[in-house]
């Protein structure tokens, strides 16, 4: 709870800084603030508690994920420092929006009441709409914004409808009561329909097939930093929330529902990977790879009892790799009008370090050992086989093979092609973020237990 309040306070602080013309200080202060919040969150980790008659319930789960979100936000804010340097007047707004977005995210994973859940999701979404469309003069950005907004609010409608039906069935928004009733009482049909609708809404947020169409376009159109945010933070938040929703609200998932999940997960991986093969725009490619990763993450919903740790691990691995990759992209595509692969030619020569980092990030996403990505997949497969879905795992494996295809396209571009332009300047922040992110990723790979055991049931 305090975490949430603190975050919001920090957001307000950012706005105040604007008023007091302290723009220079904003980024550092926010980062410090967020670090403090992280500490706060850590302190709450072992003190699960419910606030405001169960509006917010802080659990291990929520605080662990909140921690992840905060870390990601720190990275994103840090990157913002460089990214917004040529529009200083807005920097505070952007930072503030990000912080509020974080607040929404935290609310989403620690909700105890569907109202809170709804608010959280809306805060997050609206903030994202703004960020997506944030570069006003670029039509691409606008289009991305509109697309995201239209479909997003459509999805919100669905979610809302779902919530409404649940409420209708249960007469309450309190998830604990709902789950109790869902076990005991004879349920009206609306309840499962409601659950289904909410789930679908969340599928949209994490861009699972067939609700994924917005993702590539929006990722491509939105400013790079926003894309980074969407593909890392937003996706992670959504899947975490969905996981929590499913686990909290109906303990045992019906046969049919499992089928749906399996099918959607298969479809997401396959479509995501296959579509990514022929992309030339790196952001777009990562969007599709994100879709396929969504497919992987969804697999956790099949073993709701013990997959929390796995999900946390997978998301952290994925998000950290994403951050690292995007920071390189930010550096490479700073002054280029698009983010095509051609911009990465010869990066291995011009900037070995960043090239290595990007390579590592991609390898992690591809699931090559010692990078966290590998263990994430490994553990995920283990659990899924335990749950008895070996076919799904086979499909997943085949997909990981396909995915290597496009990840390596980028690596090849960096190492075998001749550099086409010389980049100058070594932005310390980007280096720092990239290095830290990838180091964390590898550290997770070396010692998976650190995270895996965090939420071990």
């Amino acid at each position, binding site marked *: 709870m305090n975490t949430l309040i603190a975050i919001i306070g920090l957001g307000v602080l950012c706005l105040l800084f604007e008023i007091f013309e302290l723009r220079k200080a904003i980024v550092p202060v926010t980062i410090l603030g967020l670090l403090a919040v992280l500490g706060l969150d850590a302190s709450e980790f072992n003190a699960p508690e419910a606030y405001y008659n169960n509006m917010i319930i802080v659990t291990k789960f929520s605080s662990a994920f909140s921690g992840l979100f905060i870390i990601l936000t720190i990275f994103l804010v840090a990157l913002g420092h460089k990214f917004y340097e040529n529009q200083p007047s807005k920097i505070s707004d952007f930072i503030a929006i990000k912080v509020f977005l974080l607040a929404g995210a935290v609310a989403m994973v620690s909700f105890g009441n569907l109202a809170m859940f709804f608010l959280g999701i809306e805060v997050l979404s609206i903030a994202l709409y703004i960020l997506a469309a944030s570069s006003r003069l670029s039509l691409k950005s606008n289009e991305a914004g*509109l*697309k995201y907004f*239209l*479909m997003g609010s*459509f*999805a919100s409608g*669905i979610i809302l409808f779902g919530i409404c039906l649940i409420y209708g069935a249960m007469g309450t928004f309190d998830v604990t009561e709902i789950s109790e009733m869902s076990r005991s009482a004879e349920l009206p*049909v609306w309840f*499962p*329909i409601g659950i*289904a*609708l909410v789930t*679908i809404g969340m599928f*949209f947020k994490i861009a699972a097939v*067939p*609700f994924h*169409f*917005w993702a*590539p*376009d929006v990722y491509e159109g939105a400013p790079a930093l926003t894309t980074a945010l969407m593909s890392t933070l937003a996706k992670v938040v959504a899947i975490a929330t969905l996981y929590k929703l499913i686990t909290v609200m109906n303990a045992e998932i*019906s046969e*049919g*529902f499992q*089928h*749906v999940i399996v099918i959607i997960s298969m479809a997401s991986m396959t*479509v995501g990977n*296959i*579509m*990514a*093969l*022929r992309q030339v725009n790196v952001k777009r490619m990562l969007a599709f790879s994100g879709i396929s990763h969504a497919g992987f993450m969804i697999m956790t919903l099949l073993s709701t009892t013990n997959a929390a740790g796995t999900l946390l691990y997978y998301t952290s691995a994925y998000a950290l790799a994403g951050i690292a990759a995007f920071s390189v992209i930010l550096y490479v595509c700073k002054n280029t009008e698009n983010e095509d692969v051609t911009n990465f030619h010869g990066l291995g020569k011009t900037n070995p370090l960043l090239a290595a980092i990007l390579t590592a990030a991609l390898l992690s996403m591809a699931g090559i050992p010692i990078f966290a990505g590998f263990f994430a997949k490994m553990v995920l497969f283990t659990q899924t086989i335990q749950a008895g879905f070996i076919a799904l795992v086979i499909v997943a494996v085949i997909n990981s093979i*396909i995915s290597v*295809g496009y990840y390596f396209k980028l690596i090849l571009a960096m190492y075998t092609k001749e550099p086409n332009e010389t980049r100058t300047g070594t932005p310390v922040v980007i280096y720092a973020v990239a290095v830290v992110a990838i180091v964390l990723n590898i550290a997770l790979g070396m010692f998976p237990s650190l995270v895996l055991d965090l939420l071990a049931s």
Partner: protein
Amino acid sequence: MDTSLTLLLLLAPFIGFLFNVFFGKSIGKSASGILGTLTVATSFATSVYFFMQISQTHQAIQIQLFDWIQISNFKVDFGFLLDQLSILWLLFVTGIGSLIHLYSISYMHDDENMHKFFAYLNLFIFFMITLVIGSNLLVLFIGWEGVGLCSYLLIGFWHKNQDFNDAAKKAFIMNRIGDLGLLIGIFIIGSMFSTLDYATLKTAITGTTNLNITWISIAAFALFIGACGKSAQIPLYTWLPDAMAGPTPVSALIHAATMVTAGIFMITRLNYLFDLAPDVQNIIAIVGAVTSLVAATIALVQTDIKKVLAYSTVSQLGLMFLALGLGAYEVAVFHVITHAFFKACLFLGSGSVIHALHGEQDMRKMGGLKKVMGITFFTFLISSLAISGIPPFSGFFSKDEILMVAFEHNKVLWIIASLASLMTAFYMFRLLYLTFFNEFRGTAEQKSHLHESPSLITFPLIVLAILATIGGLISLPTNSWLNEYLAPLFAKASHEAHHFGTTEYALMAVAVLGGLIGIGIAYAKYIKQNIVPEEDSQITGFAKVLYNKYYVDEIYDAIFVQSINSLSKFFNQYVETTLSSLVFGLGKVTNELGFQGKKIQNGSIGRYLFAFVLGICAIITYLFLAQ
């Protein structure tokens, strides 16, 4: 004592080889030559010593050096066995070996790589000794492959000429075909008797009854294939004539006297095994007889002096195999020895001729050398008489025994063999007359340089001629020293002096007569009528077939080499490409899918939302209406 001497015997040539390889060039030609000769002479001396020893003690010497290869049911150790047979072989291998080394000093003196030549020769002797004295089949195999290697190196000694290299390659590969047979035989023996060691094997086989004869026969046959490869029997004989591409001393040493007798050695070694497989023995006998005849017929019309000798070698080896097949191992061994003497002499003689004519090998361009090359001619004459089986020369005794054995067993074989020896007499004297009699037919330039070869060359000739003359004494029909000497080797009692009656004398007479007839025809043709074989182009009819060796090479080439090459072509062009395109294909398909997928993502919000709604409906339907 024995061990160290054995090692000396074995390693002396090897040291010579190493020395010649590393320092041969620096110490100069003659030096390296002498060194090479000395090392072999050392081995000869040692073998003589061992010979003395064993002829007193009659005790075979067993030496184990160390474990070599470990197999589940037995282990092969690196050991040597010096018994009557191996020592006998050692004697003439090293003896003739040293003579030929001596000969080569002078013969190869103009060659830039003389030191290498001697290195190879020494290496060959080393491997040959290994082959002979190995105490088990695998050590024999070392030598077996080793001599094959040396013959490869020496045939291709003048490696700038790709034809020679081809010949060398051919020899090696054909030998390898045999080697595979040998290996298979070894495998079967190994798994049947859990040993490859001669001594143990002998006890195992002779000691036990109710052995699985079928498998023994298969093993024996496999081994025989190996022998065919080394000893140039049908169907694996074609490499030997080509092997004449090598320097003449090599032909004398490897391709007449020693290496090619390895097959006979091996079969004699395992006589107790072959005795158990009568069918295989018959096959051996038949193959031997046929080979001798076929080779002899080919030799009738060859015009290259060395080719004639080569085919006569094949033919003589055929006779030996005939003897082996008839179970008369000691007879075969006897012929091996005498043959080693006179054939080495003949080759060296031809070498001396070629040397005199600066590399000319075509008999049509020779003649009348008798006057200038007295010694060569004389020794050559003796050896020819010997090979033609004219008493009292050595060849008469050995060949005669073979014929007798053949007569006892099977008249047909006897007829074939007699025919072969008749032809032998003919083509040998054809060779003799064409080379040494009448007028010189070469260029005037050559004529001017004609000379008798230096003493280093003639000396070995003389020695060998003497041996060829008196060699027969070691096994006289009535009391055969050789048979007694070899007796301990053989399971069955050897064909000891068949009571000498009229038939035997008659046979002898027939044989001698046959020889004389052959000589007579040759005389009539090449002295009386003074015919010179016509140019290749004019050869016609059956002669042409013979002249082209029944086109066997061509047939083999068509059947085996070509088919393998075309198969390889097929694999390379089709199979490989198909396989890789299959793998690539998967990637291509997925890529294409991605390409098509891009069309679906056409950027229209309407379509996206439509998919969205479809998704919702699908899920809801599945979940609630479908149940």
